[in-house]
């Protein structure tokens, strides 16, 4: 064991910064890969990570973390734990496994970019750990569902999803490409590590871990909470980067980066986590509602820290964000259930009488707004008109978040606009602002509806769309409970 205290060597080992004499700074840190925001060279050298770690400690900790989760996996492999899980919960973990594991590798690319193009040695050091962290997350979250493949072919999508053009995947990939696969190092630190990881990942990885333990899914709970211990560390690359931008008069630029990505992240997490928590998690296992998790983790914990750094609430906070907490994921859920053959899990309606009472209590007005729409579906199911509960057409999709634009009766009308003669549809004012704030990043990207209209999807009907999305019959989603949530369900199912 070394006799030196860590503090005696830490800074020396870490601070490998030097001024360039043979090359220009721009050649070492090209703007495309490491946008400087006009902040020069050694201004970045004061970058100091709040969460300090040596490589020796890193390796020791990570080996222990992996020992922990893989031994739980091998113990559980011999049990029938999975078979006894609630069907809705199974859908929640399938949605997670399709949306998250492969993007962990995308995040590793973003971390690797910071490990090379981050503008201070201390930062590159932390990003090296982050690069390895994200590989671990990709590997574990592909291996665990792989072990469940024999029980259910839908787990195939843990690996397959991101390689398809399924609509939810297009939405997720568009967000992740924007935030880390195709982002410069400085913006990645503000958007991925600060906004997304300090803020949003806690919802899915800790909120769902909490519910997992109540459901009895020890394996999933242990896995995702172990992953989050890496996130808690490497997310700390955001704060020092933000601090240097503020010190150098770039607060407005940093605020814009956060405002853009906070909104985009909100949309995707409302879709993934919102539905999983408030509809797929069995009622008796729900620890808090999605809105309560948002209030605790985002509105309180994340915003306390953000404001403490001298930053402001995003401009759309009161007018758009807080109101959406009450309705947007309920509308998404209705849409996902309706278009259920287009997803790789079996959507759980989650609207039995007891669940409706819970929803009304957590979201006053839910019955009047959404319950009445479920009444129509329930009537059709009871009357055996299952065909009427299926879509005949594709929805309109937002050109920014790529999520279907929800019906005006529950949300708002699509905002139809144009850019250089190209017709664009947005779900809301904020998505339109995000897109128009940097059209050069988005203009060549086609939404699934744009592709349909351009003739890329053949035949131009639902069947052709399913084929385009890579959805095969054994994977296409159906109601998780075979309509048992509805009274007289057995009649309807026949």
């Amino acid at each position, binding site marked *: 064991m070394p006799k030196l205290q860590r503090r005696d060597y830490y800074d020396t080992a870490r601070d490998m910064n030097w001024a360039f004499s043979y090359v220009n700074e721009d050649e070492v840190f090209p703007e495309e890969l490491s946008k400087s925001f006009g902040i020069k060279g050694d201004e970045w050298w004061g970058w100091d990570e*709040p969460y300090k770690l040596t490589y020796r400690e890193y390796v020791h900790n990570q080996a222990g973390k992996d020992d*922990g989760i893989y031994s739980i996996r091998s113990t559980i492999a011999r049990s029938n734990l999975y078979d006894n899980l609630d069907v809705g919960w199974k859908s929640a973990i399938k949605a997670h496994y399709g949306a998250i594991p492969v993007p962990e590798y995308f995040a590793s690319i973003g971390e690797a970019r910071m490990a090379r193009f981050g503008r201070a040695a201390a930062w590159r050091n932390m990003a090296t750990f982050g690069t390895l962290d994200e590989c671990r997350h990709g590997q574990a979250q592909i291996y665990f569902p792989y072990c469940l493949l024999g029980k259910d072919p839908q787990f195939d999508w843990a690996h397959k999803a991101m390689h398809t053009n399924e609509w939810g995947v297009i939405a997720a990939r568009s967000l992740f490409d924007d935030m880390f696969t195709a982002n410069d190092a400085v913006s990645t630190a503000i958007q991925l590590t600060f906004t997304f990881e300090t803020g949003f990942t806690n919802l899915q990885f800790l909120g769902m871990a909490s519910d997992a*333990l109540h459901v009895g899914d020890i394996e999933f709970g242990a896995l995702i909470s172990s992953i989050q211990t890496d996130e808690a560390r490497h997310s700390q690359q955001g704060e020092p980067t933000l601090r240097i931008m503020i010190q150098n008069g770039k607060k407005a630029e940093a605020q814009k980066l956060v405002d853009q990505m906070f909104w985009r992240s909100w949309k995707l997490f409302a879709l993934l986590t919102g539905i999983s928590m408030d509809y797929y998690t069995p009622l008796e296992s729900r*620890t808090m509602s999605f809105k309560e998790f948002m209030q605790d983790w985002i509105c309180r914990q994340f915003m306390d820290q953000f404001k403490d750094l001298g930053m402001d609430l995003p401009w759309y906070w009161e007018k758009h964000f807080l109101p959406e907490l009450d309705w947007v994921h309920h509308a998404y859920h209705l849409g996902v259930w309706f278009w259920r053959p287009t997803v790789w899990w079996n959507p759980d309606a989650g609207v039995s009488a007891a669940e409706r009472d819970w929803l009304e209590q957590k979201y006053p007005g839910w019955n009047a707004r959404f319950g009445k729409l479920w009444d129509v579906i329930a009537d059709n199911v009871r009357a055996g008109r299952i065909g009427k509960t299926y879509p005949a057409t594709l929805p309109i999709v937002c050109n920014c978040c790529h999520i279907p634009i929800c019906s005006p009766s529950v949300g708002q009308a699509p905002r139809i606009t144009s850019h250089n003669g190209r017709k664009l549809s947005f779900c809301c004012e904020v998505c339109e602002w995000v897109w128009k704030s940097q059209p050069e990043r988005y203009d060549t990207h086609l939404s699934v509806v744009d592709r349909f209209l351009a003739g890329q999807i053949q035949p131009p009907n639902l069947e052709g769309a399913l084929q385009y999305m890579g959805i095969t019959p054994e994977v296409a989603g159906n109601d998780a409970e075979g309509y048992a949530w509805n009274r007289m369900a057995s009649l309807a199912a026949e």
Partner: protein
Amino acid sequence: MNATAAAIKLVGPVIRGVDEDIIEAVITAGETDNPDLEIVVEDRGGYVRVQADKNFRLTQKSMQAALGRPFRLAEIEPSLVSFAGRLHSMDDEWVWTIHS
């Protein structure tokens, strides 16, 4: 929520729910290291918040005493799923704060 409650800003570690021994140790050590503050424990199953108003200190010395074994603060990482407030980590002491 009254005026005082609104001004309270809880900061401190969030510990992985399956790691019982660390949860207990952080609560005990937190009480020793923050004698003037009320330690607020919030158990959510999958994770447990151990926090105090605007400032939370955790020392290596108190963690070793609570665990009854050698412990370096960096070893808390496998149990530290998140935290509230801004962290300052040193060899023998970690502090979480919110200033405003």
